[in-house]
């Protein structure tokens, strides 16, 4: 295949409240996702990071087509799927699956594990009872569960085992992309490592692509090929995982990564403290959305939204201060170099 498996361009999701504001004025709109672009190649992992409310989960829901995009494009294996309906949407949904944070909430307590894993295959139709059974056995073995456990109910399993069941179910239709929304946050430290290893093994064996959402930056840096950092509905920086972790260029990325807990008592990081709280997404700040909290804010930041420009070391960054952006001259408003 040429080109990336998933290619997202200028994707938007604006939520308008249901109540009528006609008498008061135009309805306020939350720009939860406001023009994000990224792509994921086959066998690669993209990490989406940012604080609560930055739009990462809405982005994931758009990819899964659980939300209808307000604008932009989602190209999957070369074909647009943002407006797909009927058979095409069903086809797309077999190719893209999800694993969520809480393995207690995502598995029906009234179904046997065997039936939980078999359900997507049965819904897809066209398989005999025997084929379904064989596939279930195969899937359970694949995620490291004994097929004999199939007749048990979810409450008989530990958190880590439940997450294996959720992964087996996610793999049932042989998807090419899996959206992992905080897949290990609810798990104990020792179990977390098992699940992360399993996800990596499966990726290698099945050439899966992942979109991983996590607030644990160490998990993201460990798992991802590329990391995209979101703030108030926009990607402010994106690039190879190592570059983002070791040489972040956007002040927000720098602050985010500096807030990681130390790996050792002697390693107290020089923290970049952000002032204030994340502004309301009803009324995002003018210019750069981060300017109200940015420790390095300049006058231009309040007026002009910085373009997303190539960053030194790979990827890109949307900041007036980023060296690569300056070198590119920013055309129209390039008063800085003269």
């Amino acid at each position: 295949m040429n080109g990336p498996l998933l290619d997202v361009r200028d994707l938007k999701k604006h939520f308008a409240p249901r109540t009528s504001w006609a008498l008061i004025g135009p309805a306020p709109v939350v720009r939860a996702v406001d023009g994000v672009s990224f792509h994921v190649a086959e066998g690669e992992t993209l990490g989406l990071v940012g604080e609560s409310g930055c739009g990462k989960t809405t982005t994931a829901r758009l990819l899964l087509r659980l939300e209808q995009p307000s604008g932009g494009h989602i190209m999957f294996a070369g074909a647009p799927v943002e407006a797909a309906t009927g058979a095409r949407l069903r086809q797309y949904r077999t190719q893209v699956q999800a694993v969520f944070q809480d393995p207690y909430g995502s598995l029906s307590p009234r179904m046997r594990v065997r039936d939980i894993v078999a359900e997507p295959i049965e819904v897809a139709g066209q398989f005999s009872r025997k084929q379904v059974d064989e596939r279930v056995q195969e899937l359970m073995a694949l995620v490291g569960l004994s097929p004999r456990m199939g007749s048990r109910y979810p409450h008989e399993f530990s958190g880590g085992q439940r997450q294996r069941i959720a992964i087996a179910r996610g793999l049932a239709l042989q998807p090419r992309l899996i959206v992992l929304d905080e897949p290990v946050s609810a798990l104990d430290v020792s179990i977390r490592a098992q699940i992360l290893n399993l996800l990596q093994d499966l990726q290698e064996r099945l050439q899966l692509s992942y979109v991983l959402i996590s607030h644990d930056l160490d998990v993201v840096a460990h798992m991802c090929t590329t990391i995209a950092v979101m703030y108030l509905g926009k990607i402010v920086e994106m690039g190879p995982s190592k570059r983002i972790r070791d040489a972040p260029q956007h002040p927000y990325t720098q602050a985010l990564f500096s807030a990681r807990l130390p790996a050792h008592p002697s390693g107290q990081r020089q923290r970049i403290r952000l002032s204030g709280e994340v502004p309301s997404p009803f009324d995002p700040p003018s210019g750069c959305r981060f300017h109200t909290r940015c420790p390095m804010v300049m006058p231009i930041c309040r007026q002009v939204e910085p373009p997303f420009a190539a960053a030194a070391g790979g990827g890109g960054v949307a900041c007036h201060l980023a060296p690569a952006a300056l070198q590119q001259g920013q055309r129209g408003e390039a008063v800085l170099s003269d």
Partner: protein
Amino acid sequence: MTDAAADLTDDALLRVEGLEVHLADRDGLRVVRAVNGVDFTLARGETVGIVGESGCGKSMTAMSLMRLLPASARIVDGAVSFAGEDLLAKSEAEMRRLRGQQIAMILQDPMVSLDPLYRIGDQMAEPLRIHKSMSGTALRSKLEALLRAVGISSPERRLRQYPHQMSGGMLQRIVGATAMSCDPLLLIADEPTTALDPTVQAQFLDLLDELKQRTGLSLLIITHDFGVAARLCDRVLVMYAGRIVEQAPVREIFDNPRHPYTQALLSTVPGRQHASGRRLRTIEGQPPDLADLPPGCSFAARCPKAQQRCHAEAPPELRLGDRHTVRCWYAMS
């Protein structure tokens, strides 16, 4: 009590000896040994972290100190002394006078600690009204000062608001401010930052650090995250299956962990291990059934170094150095 702990007790604010907590199973037939002989001390001004995974007994230990165990749990043995007083001998009325005044607690989820139906100001005022008989202008200015001290601006307005009008990080700071309101000697924080975003977590840990410096209180932090311990603690206790399997000053725990469980836990976390390979180290197997503990070391079934002796005999607490103890037969090798 062990020798190692005894050395530290001159200045001890809290001393826990041989604490055992049993939980009744639903059918009442099995006894779950949630806490199985825990000894430790906490000096004045010291910050100690109890690190362990779900079900290791860390929260049960904390709740025992507050005497706030669930109805199915019972303290069956041990002693807890706090500022020279025997906490386990106190009546419920006496405990109520201590809680929120001399011992305060912060829980994981601020929405559990705060009532959604009451204004922030009314909730924050409660301990001050009860313990300090404060009211009127004095109370209001105290509350405003408390909010300012945890970095919340326009406190007059915040005090009139309800919990749903604020972010999680702000609510946790309010819980922190409330806990500090009566100048407690001991603050117990049970996973205080687990529900928070990393930036907010870092801010909250800064706040705890600052409160500690300013007031000299003792802090007991319950966490599953060694990073929290690295950030804040003077000393770390590692718990497994109801027991403290290792305790040492924080640097010693990181640089020279001697219990195989501590070693394994430290190396399973991405970004914190020495090797930078793609595969993470894991701990195979599951913790033991607390209603049916093995006769030997409770970690033996999962331990890569286990010998025959480990399965047969529970290791005693070995003293390795000045303040380092470990429950492992082979910690010296």
